[in-house]
Structure formats: C-alpha cells, structure tokens
C-alpha cells in the first residue's frame, strides 16, 4: 500500500548541512502496524513527516496505492491528507478555545462523520465532552487527540511519540485505546517512538540509525501495552 523508494532529505546549507534521510526504502502493507524506532536525531520523525505528506523529500518517491505523493502540489497534498491520513502528536495540539466535542468535530467534519460522538465514547470521554483542554489531564488530552484523528476515518494513522509527554501508566492506557480502535476499525498504523517496549506492540519494527534503516524486525502478533508488560 505505501511504498517508499530511495527517500532522501537534507536540512540546512553549507557547513550546517545535515542529511537526515539517506535513501530509505520501505513497504507498508494495508492494516499493518509499523513502529519506527530510533534514538533522537536518527531521522525517524522526519521520515514520518515525509511519509504523511507534511513535508516533501528531496529525492525518491512515496506511493500510496501506486500514486506518488511527492509529485503533488501543496493543494493536492492537503486533499491527500484530508482523505487519507490522521495524526496524533506528542504535544496533542488541541485547540485550547474549543471543547472536547468541537476538537473531535475538527476531524469528523472532514470526513462528514456525523457519528463522531461514538469516538468520544470509545476513548472514555463522553462525560467530559463539554470540557476545555485545560480542564483535562495530559492522558485525557491525548485521548481527545486520538478521537479527533480517528473521527476523520483515516486509512493511515501516524503517531509521533504519542506517549512522550505522558507518565508510564497514562501512556500505557492511551496506547491501549489505540490498539483497541485499531482492531475495531482496521486502519494502518505508523508510529514513531524511541521506547523499545512500545515497539514490541507492532507487527514490524523499523530501526533507524543516522538517517538509514538499520534493521527491520517482525513480531508474530500485535500485543497490547499490558501484554508486553510495559
């Protein structure tokens, strides 16, 4: 479904020029659960941004069902993101002046999803749907961002260090919600993390080092955060 070929990306110029991605080749199948694992500065977040159409690579191709998104204009990329991808970020990026319900509607309206309330219920926030982000804990805010991302019915869900700002228990709970929804809705997951334990939850683990894929491991089955004992 997603096919990356020889992806390169460089930042800066002159002496500060840094090659962040050095010829990445990767295939991700439909309904796959892929974790991109690597230390800080290994290029994993850049790979996620490039793969999701948030920014363009310098070279190579990224094909979704045969359609190369590196050739799309900004407006076409926006439409592509609207129709295909959802995001969950480490810092949540909720709209502070809107309630939980309105934040989730931000995603739902893009897919004309009138049943967005189900998603709020699915992440256990039905009682807090009229609260504002500042009235919620970090874990609850991340659950709102999960509901918002999934309310737009994405084919691929991109997660950038989704538990990075949460304590261990809250992070585990957030991941558990994601796993349950993954099983219920069957989308593809691409998650970036530096946490080895979380990597065990995925079908495949792509280990990155210095802008290159160092290793691809395959797990037998997707496990919940509780099953891997994290």
């Amino acid at each position, binding site marked *: 479904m997603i096919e990356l070929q020889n992806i390169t990306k460089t930042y800066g110029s002159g002496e500060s020029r840094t090659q962040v991605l050095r010829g990445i080749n990767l295939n991700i199948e439909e309904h796959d659960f892929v974790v991109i694992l690597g230390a800080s500065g290994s290029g994993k977040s850049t790979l996620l941004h490039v793969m999701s159409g948030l*920014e363009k690579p310098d070279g190579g191709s990224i094909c979704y069902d045969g359609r190369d998104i590196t050739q799309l204009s*900004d407006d076409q990329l*926006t439409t592509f993101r609207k129709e295909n991808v*959802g995001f969950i970020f480490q*810092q949540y*990026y*909720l709209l502070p002046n809107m309630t939980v*319900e*309105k934040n989730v509607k931000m995603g*739902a309206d893009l897919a004309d999803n009138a049943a967005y309330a189900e998603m709020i219920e699915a992440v256990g926030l039905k009682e807090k749907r009229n609260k504002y982000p500042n009235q919620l804990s970090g874990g609850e805010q991340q659950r709102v961002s999960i509901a918002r991302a999934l309310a737009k019915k994405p084919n691929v869900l991109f997660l950038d260090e989704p538990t990075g700002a949460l304590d261990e228990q809250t992070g585990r709970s957030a991941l558990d919600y994601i796993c349950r929804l993954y099983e219920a809705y069957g989308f593809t997951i691409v998650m970036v993390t530096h946490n080895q334990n979380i990597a065990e939850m995925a079908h495949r683990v792509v280990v990155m080092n210095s802008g290159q894929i160092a290793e691809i491991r395959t797990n037998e089955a997707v496990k919940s955060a509780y099953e891997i004992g994290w």
Partner: protein
Amino acid sequence: MRSDGERMIVGMKDAVKLVGISVIVYCAVLVCTLFLNYRMDLLTIADLLETEQEMIVYKAQKATSVIICLITGGCLLLTSVVTLCFYIKHYIDTHKKELGILKALGYGNWRIAGSFWVFGSSVLTGAGLGIVTAYVMMPALYRVQNKDALLPDLVVRYHPMLVLWMALLPTAFFSVLAIVYARIRLKVPPLRLLKEDSMPDGKARRAVAGKEQDHFLRELKRTTLWEKKILLFFMVFSSFCFSAMTQMSFSMRELASEMMGAMMMVIGLVLAVTTLFLAVTTVVRGNVKTIAMMRAFGYSQRECCQALLGVYRPAAYIGFALGTVYQYGLLRIMVDIVFRDMDGMPAYQFSVPRMLLSLVCFAVLYEILMYGYSEKMRRISIKEIMMGAE
C-alpha cells in the same frame, strides 16, 4: 544594573514593536499641536479685530480649532489607550511562561509590572515626531487659514507649554497606565501563567458556545470573532477611520482648504492601515498552531482563510458605513452650527460618487491586505510548529 531576571521582562526591543501606538500618537499630536498653536496665536490678535466680519471669522476659526482638537485628539487618545492595553495583554499572554517563572522565583507583581514603563517610550517617539512635523507645517497652515486675508497677519509662535501637554504628560500618563494595567493582568498565580494554553473564562465561553451540530468551521468562525472582541473593534475602527477621513478630506477641500483635506486623507489612511495591520497580524499570529493543525488534517488554504480572516469582512464594511454616517453628521454640525454666520461658506451636501470612490478604494486596500495575509498563512511551516520552533 538590571538583574538577569529583570532582563527577561520588558526591554526597549519590545517597546519598538509598539510602532502602532507611535503612529496613532504621531497623528494625534500633529493635528492637536497644529490647531492648538494656531488657536493660541489667534488669541494674540483679538485686540486688533475691527470689523464684524473679522470677529465672525475669528470666532469660527477658534471654534474649529477646538472642535478638531477635541475630535481628533479625543478619538486618537482613546484608540491609543485601547491599543496600549491590548499590546500589554498580548505581551503578557505571549510571555506567560517567562513571567510565570519570574513570579515563581519570587519577583513581585509591582517589580515585574514596573518594567512595563518602557511602553510609554513609544508615545514619546510618536509625540516628539508629531510636534516637530507640526512646527514644520505650521507656516503653511497659517497661510492657508488666512488666504483671503480676512484676519490680521498671524506670526507662528513657539509655545513650550504644548511640549509639556502634547509629549511629556502623555508619555508619563501612558507609562503609568502600562505599569498599572500590567500589574492588574499579572495578578494571577504563577502556575496559571506557566500553563501553556489559556482557557477562555466563563463569560467568553458562554458567548462563543454554539450549537452542537454546527460545522467545525462555523464554530471556529464564531470563536475567532467573539473571543477577542478587541480585534473586532480594531477591524471596525480601521474601516471607520478610512471611510470618515477620506470622505471628510474630499469635503474639506471645498469647505476649508486643500491642505486640511490632504492632511485628513493622510491621517485617515495611516490610521486605517495601522489598525488593520495590527488586528490582522494578531489574528494570524494567535492562530498559528490552529492553522498548522488544520492544514495537517487536510483543511484547505481557502477554508483556513475564510474561518480566520473572512469572518471579519462584514465587520469591516459595517465600520465603513458607520464612518460615512459619522462624517456626514460631523460636517453637517460644522456647517449648520459653527459656520452658520459666515458669508460665502459653500453649501455642504452628501456626495454619493465620493462615497462610492472611497468604498472602492477601501475594498481594494482591504482585499489586497487580506490576500497578503492569506499568502502568509500559506507559508506557515507545519513542521516547524510540530517541532515547537515557532
């Protein structure tokens, strides 16, 4: 010597950003100095007046000077106060973390607020330039005001009191106002300042709460419009200034002089552009994360612009209509009451073609500015926001 902590608060660099206030004060001081100086010099010829006609012209010009000072000075003083308070609130909102850290470390509210006096320096800059420009323009104004030689010759005299009233006292007033207002805004617990996102208060929340089934974009429009009413005021004020001053400048060319007409035109344009620029810049800067998230999720450029900028368009045109009514009313009062005894005063009538010309010019200016800002929104880097490098 300022401590490291105090250097984290407000500095001259921040005061430079208040160029909007400097511009408004410049316009106010320019007009008020010109006409107050003229009025003070007029008083020196009171004993030289011989005919009834001279007396009528003398009284009319004295009254006009006071009216112009009261209207221009009053409006612009009010705008400057609102703008200053807006800047301070905005400054505190965007520097919450630094201020919260200082408070947590033990810096007192008055000590932090004390550093906000520098915002008064923007008033001194504008006022100083306004006075200098006024004295440069003064001989020309005196000539134009007495071009028909209806009054004895007037000599431009320098009145030091005006420097006190037009520059020093306003600077002191604005510095104190900045300190007091900052002190009021800082009266919150440090933890609340340290929290990144501000939550709308109960009143604001009630005002913006929409129907549950409303589309997200409609909700965003409503929130954008009502959450910061001050920006709505600036939008309306900007088009109000443009409309009133440009149309009045056309009339002033006939009723008073070309010079007054040109002066009003310039002041109107400067005020309109400054306030519009201030309001739109704040809207875009305050919504950078929202724009980035909307674009990441797949909302189009057009949808983002319509929700955040397009929502102010009706307000801008309402301001234009209000400005038209205001200038008509003001000129009617001037012609019917102030100048009613003067011979040879041209009749004043509302001009539809001039109003339409002003409207077209405003529409072109407004839409060009909005286009510029929508392009600016397009250039907001999603990745930079995500990486926290705003």
